[in-house]
């Protein structure tokens, strides 16, 4: 029987190795798999490349992972948020690398990675500093830059519901990067608020088909990142 459910957070991230590339879902806190990130902090893997839209807030979740010096490089579109101090400090000190990618290009690069597309052309960033050094080509009289698919060793993703096959449903705008990150990573590790029986997710409504997911863990009451930030908590606590 196929059963992708695992029961401990430490087991969920156990295989993550030093130097791994990890995609982490979320747009700000919406969709950020905070329990999995904290488990990765406990686990301690180092020299990671993190692909995520932001760099976290306060001293919890993604920001805490960076603060714990486990991240060598981030690939993201917006490494600034209202309460983000960790990343800016390390970046200005030259202690963390940044590959800045326009948000839509980031999404498409991840989608391409998952879809076996090594490279594609886009008009985003043409004539800007972010296009410097990139191959470009004219199609129909318009210039486009060549962008490369991104693949990862692991993805950490937050979902609303999962079943033993790894089929996923999301909640509202927490969906964001989750579905494409599952496709682009060898091992997609998902924390779901509820794991339901096979057949309890209508096949017409599945957002991430199970083939893209390798591990699911039920986290019924995920922490509220904003609250933790307001309370000025730091992980590890």
């Amino acid at each position: 029987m196929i059963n992708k459910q695992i029961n401990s957070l430490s087991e969920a991230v156990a295989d993550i190795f030093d130097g791994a590339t990890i995609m982490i879902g979320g747009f700000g806190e919406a969709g950020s798999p905070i329990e999995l990130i904290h488990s990765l902090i406990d686990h301690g893997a180092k020299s990671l490349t993190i692909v995520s839209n932001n760099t976290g807030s306060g001293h919890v979740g993604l920001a805490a992972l960076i603060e714990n010096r486990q991240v060598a490089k981030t690939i993201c579109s917006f490494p600034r948020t209202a309460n983000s101090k960790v990343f800016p400090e390390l970046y200005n000190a030259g202690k963390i690398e940044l590959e800045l990618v326009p948000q839509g290009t980031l999404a498409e690069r991840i989608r391409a990675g998952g879809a076996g597309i090594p490279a594609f052309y886009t008009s985003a960033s043409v004539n800007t500093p972010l296009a410097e050094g990139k191959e470009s080509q004219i199609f129909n009289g318009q210039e486009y830059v060549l962008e490369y698919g991104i693949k990862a060793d692991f993805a950490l993703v937050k979902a609303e519901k999962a079943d033993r096959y790894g089929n996923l449903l999301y909640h509202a705008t927490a969906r964001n990067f989750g579905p494409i990150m599952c496709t682009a990573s060898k091992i997609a590790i998902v924390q779901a608020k509820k794991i339901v029986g096979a057949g309890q997710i209508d096949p017409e409504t599945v957002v991430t088909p199970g083939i893209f997911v390798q591990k699911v863990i039920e986290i019924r009451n995920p922490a509220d990142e904003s609250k933790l930030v307001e309370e000025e908590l730091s992980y590890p606590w």
Partner: protein
Amino acid sequence: MVNNDIKIGWSRAEMAQKVALDIPDGSYVNLGIGIPELVADFVPEGRELIYQTENGLLGMGPVPEEGKGDRELVNAGKKYITAIPGAAYFHHADSFTMIRGGHIDICVLGAMQVSKDGDLANWSTGAKNAIPAVGGAMDLVAGVKRIFVITQHVTKYGDPKIVDECTFPLTGKQVVECIYTNLAIIDVKKDGLFVREMAPNVSFEYLMVKTGAKLNQYIKAKV
């Protein structure tokens, strides 16, 4: 010169209202973070617009009541929003299919600088120790059919934001169609910048002083 004691120009709300008037019924609209967000408050009677937020929602509704927000239902500025009946959620690649694929009719963005050719700079001052952060701005200006800019006419230091050539790193080249400032509405045409409307108590001469690029008049302005 204009007397500095009388009210000059439009408020942010008035600027947003001017933008709203120019958005046709039935448009699909993406609103940038900041002043652009206000545009949603001024949809003229009888029009229905659909707002897209690039983090995965088509059919963004009004801000929820205080205390009723859902941490996972937010806009691009990470503020609480709601979804209208008839909304749709989707993932980021599908969201930028809408944007990059030319399906969004209008995007209203803030600006640091706009050039006489419609070049837009709104993501980085290029300062050495600023953390570069681009978000979806480059994708939006490259993909959306019409780009409107809403911005104060000058910086908080009084420097013009409408300039001959942008000195800040570009977001996109020749992308802006119209600039809505607190002082005027300016169309970006192939043959230059044309002032379509001036705010109360703003003269064309005053506007020229506050602008770093040549301005043209569609018709001779009343001085």
